[in-house]
């Protein structure tokens, strides 16, 4: 049952990406084209997600433990450092180039689009390469 939750949560997330159209890089690039032809939809996706998640996070984290696990397990890192800003800037550059971030990119594998598969392979290589960059920042 615990494992099934991962599958169910991922599936619902993937459906949300389709309904919100965030699976389409063109919609994401439209949001980032603030000074051109701007499509504000992505901001509304984040608002929709936060309306649901924010109050419920608050209620859930005050529980003694999660329903199917012994304890809560999430990073409480509060540090704002060079890695955070440089990494996020690199991510932003890649996001602006292709209009793809990890969730929509992985979901779009379902469409068997060769271009999104190329992106996903490069992204996984990037995950691997990141540890060499981390040492030098």
């Amino acid at each position, binding site marked *: 049952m615990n494992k099934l939750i*991962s*599958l169910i*949560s991922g*599936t*619902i*997330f*993937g459906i949300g990406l389709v309904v*919100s*159209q965030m699976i389409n890089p063109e*919609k994401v690039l439209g949001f*980032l*084209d*603030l*000074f*051109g*032809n*701007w*499509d*504000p*939809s992505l901001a*509304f*996706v*984040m608002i*929709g997600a936060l309306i*649901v*998640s*924010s109050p419920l996070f*608050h209620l*859930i*984290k005050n529980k003694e*433990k*999660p*329903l199917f696990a012994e304890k809560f397990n999430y990073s409480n890192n*509060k540090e704002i450092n060079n890695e955070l*800003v440089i*990494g*996020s800037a690199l*991510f*932003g550059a*890649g*996001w*602006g*180039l*292709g209009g793809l971030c*990890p969730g929509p990119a*992985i*979901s*779009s594998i*379902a*469409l068997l689009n060769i*271009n999104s598969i*190329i*992106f996903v392979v*490069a992204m*996984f290589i*990037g*995950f691997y*390469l990141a*540890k060499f960059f*981390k040492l030098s920042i």
Partner: protein
Amino acid sequence: MNIINFTPISAIIGGMIIGLAVVIFFLFKGRLVGISGIAANVLSEKKNKFDNLLFLLGLVIGPIIYSVFTKQVISITISNSLILLICAGLLVGIGTRIGGGCTSGHGISGIGRFSLRSIVATVTFMVVGILTVLIKNFV
């Protein structure tokens, strides 16, 4: 600035569905969804490996279920440039690992619990993303 292609209703509803997925993951498993972390850990860590793999599998199944039930074909517009796709993929992979999260981990899970660290990350990747598109439109 012109506003075009704005789809507020489907954006809000889709966003709420994404919020629901994140809440379910937190309520049952005590973990916060961050897709770059989940995906990277499938390769590099033994802990939660199968769990993470199932989540990624769900991400792929989601659009298929949507298509089957609504009988709609999902169409996307994506760059055809091999060099652009590879550069973008590498930057997203390296950047999200160094920065400790992506649009889901920092943008939803992090901001959802008012983490200043995640707000700084989200503002950074959005500003750089906007500048990248601005530059791309000039070139």
